[in-house]
């Protein structure tokens, strides 16, 4: 159901960003960028415990008229942002969580690849496949 999925590095530059191509992608890029502030806010608030996946999942960052933005942060401060179209049947929280989990897993796989340098944009076909799957699901 996602219309845009983004992976942002610790230094807040995008490692991977992909939107449903029919729409104005720049809008989504902007949305993701602005969502980073919210993410930072939430991270600073949750300082104490690490490794709890619930805390990794930030939940709905903020809703707008058209879409909702969900956030997820890893222990290494890599952020995942999913933008979901509001017009779709609203997804349950669990579904969003599972999407993030899948993203995290495939991101880990990418990181494990010795040919991938951390900090490079993600160019893994497997990762692309996962992301496409999530976006195709939304239709």
């Amino acid at each position, binding site marked *: 159901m996602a219309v845009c999925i983004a992976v942002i590095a610790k230094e807040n530059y995008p490692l991977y960003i992909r939107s449903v191509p029919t729409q104005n992608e720049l809008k989504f890029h902007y949305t993701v960028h602005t969502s980073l502030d919210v993410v930072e806010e939430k991270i600073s608030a949750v300082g104490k415990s690490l490794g709890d996946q619930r805390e990794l999942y930030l939940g709905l960052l903020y809703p707008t008229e058209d879409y909702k933005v969900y956030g997820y942060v890893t222990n290494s401060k890599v952020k995942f942002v999913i933008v979901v179209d509001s017009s779709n049947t609203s997804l349950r929280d669990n579904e969003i969580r599972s999407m993030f989990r899948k993203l995290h897993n495939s991101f*880990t*796989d*990418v990181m*494990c*690849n*010795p*040919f*991938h340098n951390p900090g490079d944009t993600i*160019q*893994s*076909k*497997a990762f692309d496949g996962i992301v496409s799957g999530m976006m195709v699901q939304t239709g």
Partner: protein
Amino acid sequence: MDPESVVASAGAGGSFISLNEPEQRYYSGLHSLCQADASGTLSSSKVAELFKASQLPPESLHKVTELCGAKRLGYFGTPQFFVALKLLAAAQSGLPVHLESVTANLPLPRFVGLKNEPEMRYSAVPPSIDGQGAQCVSAPGSVCRTPADRSTFRHLEAKVEKKEPWSPPRSPSSSPPRSPLIYRGYPYTKKRNGADSQIAYESKHSSRPIVLLEQHSSPSNHGTRANADHLAMARASSSERLDQQGAVDYSDDDPWRITEEQLEYYTNQFKTLQPDLGALILGTIAKNFFTKSKLPIPELSHIWELSDVDRDGALTFPEFCTAFHLIVARKNGYPLPESLPPTLRPGVMQQEEDIPDTPEDRSIIERLQPSLATTKQDLKEESCKQDVGVKRMTTSQEKRTLQFGGFPDRPEAPQDLDPHMRTKTRPRSHSSTSFEDTMKKAEEPPTPPPRPQKTHSRASSLDLNKLFQQGAPGIKSGWFPPPPALPPRPLTSQVSHFVNVSEKTVQQPNFADFSRFREEEESSVKPEEQGPCSRFGPSTEDLANASKQDGIGVCHSQPPQKPLRRKYHPESQNLETGPPPAMPFPTPTKSAQKLLSKQKREIQMAIRKNKETNAVLTRLNSELQQQLKVVHQERVTLESQLELLRPLAPT
């Protein structure tokens, strides 16, 4: 001819044979004569012509090709060519064709009837060659390793330069030789223009000794022979080259199937990185290693993704083989698959994981290489190690044939494979069931004689043994009566006998092997039997010798039979001891499903073996008939000579 590539490839090889100046000039002249393309590989037809012009016997040429490493690589790169020339010179001087001869100070090899004078060409290269001579280092003790090293080091580099494998003689029928589009266009199927000639080549390729014979009779096939031989021995890119040149070792043109040669090569590479074959190669180490292949990083990244199936950031041995194979395929121009081909799934490789666990098994793997020169030795070793190694051999054979149902080693396999299985059980079983048919079909045409001995005979014997232990299904019981009937057959009618045997082969899948083997035992006792004795792989090589020296050929054929005999005795014994206890075994002891699947697999294997043996037998038949003709002709000439001399006798 690209002098830089010559220098680069020679220099990059590390250790190299030493050439003195005239040799270098001559060799580089010949090299240019053989029309190397841009990548530095030589046209096989020209090389074949050159070898023919050396007027050496075909088995020497064959050995030369083998030794120089071109077989392994599947093409003549510059170092291979130079080593081959050295070996030719050695052979022409009467030295044995061996790698140590390379270091000797030899006269230049003589080639009769070369179209162009090589001396014309060398003027372009002497400067670089002279420099190259200074670089060349030869270590006599390590000469044997030299081709391996060179091929190891150059393997990756050569792949960069190489745009295509050898252009085979029949290339016009398949596609323009130099177009890398060939690879792009190759699906993993057999659909190609030269399909018919492929089959012809497959049949030729299927047995190297047979190819040698054919080389006798048809000089034009020399290129084919060398081609086929190279294909047989070709390593990393062998699968693609096999596709292109129509001879496939195992199955259809699946370029994602790893051949024995490749596997051994990968094993060696793995060992250089990580001596313990059961351990993991760390990601960084693997990265450095694979970066040497000079593939772009995104492709390497993709390859890694495909091959590291357990996603642990390290490569196990099967994963390493997969990755290496993918790299090799990519370097040969094959597009990377999106997902891991089933034949490369680690489930396939799991079988190999079992094998390298012990050094003994490793040696068995190496012995499994279809190398004619060592086949005899292999058989002896195999027969010696039979008791211990048989099961592992079968497992490795299965790996080779990619039949990893694990059925030969039922008691062992689950234990061995469970630790390795992880989550790969399902892909493994999928592959086995889905690819058995293709394997069966594909293995029919190109099966060389050594294979049935080493693989299927054993496997079949093991199957039966296991079946007997577990209560052979009723189907197998039908095979029991025939074998005892065969031995009393008269030995003098061996040829016709074999025809009968082949018929029997059709009827009784597994037992055909044993019946034939028993006959072979008997035939080996009879020295006057030439052809039939030397039916199987190593002996067919001696068949080539036999065609030249009629009487001596028999003697040649005998030694290989002894190991055969030794090898097959236990099998026949197992057979004979097996049946009686098997009958009363209660089948309900095992689960019906297991039996059924086992049966099915065994039947399929038996059918495959059957077909292979059929092919082998028909080929042998034709060879024998040729021999017979030759012998007849010689007899006629001798008789005529005798008659000529008769009038002179009284005077």
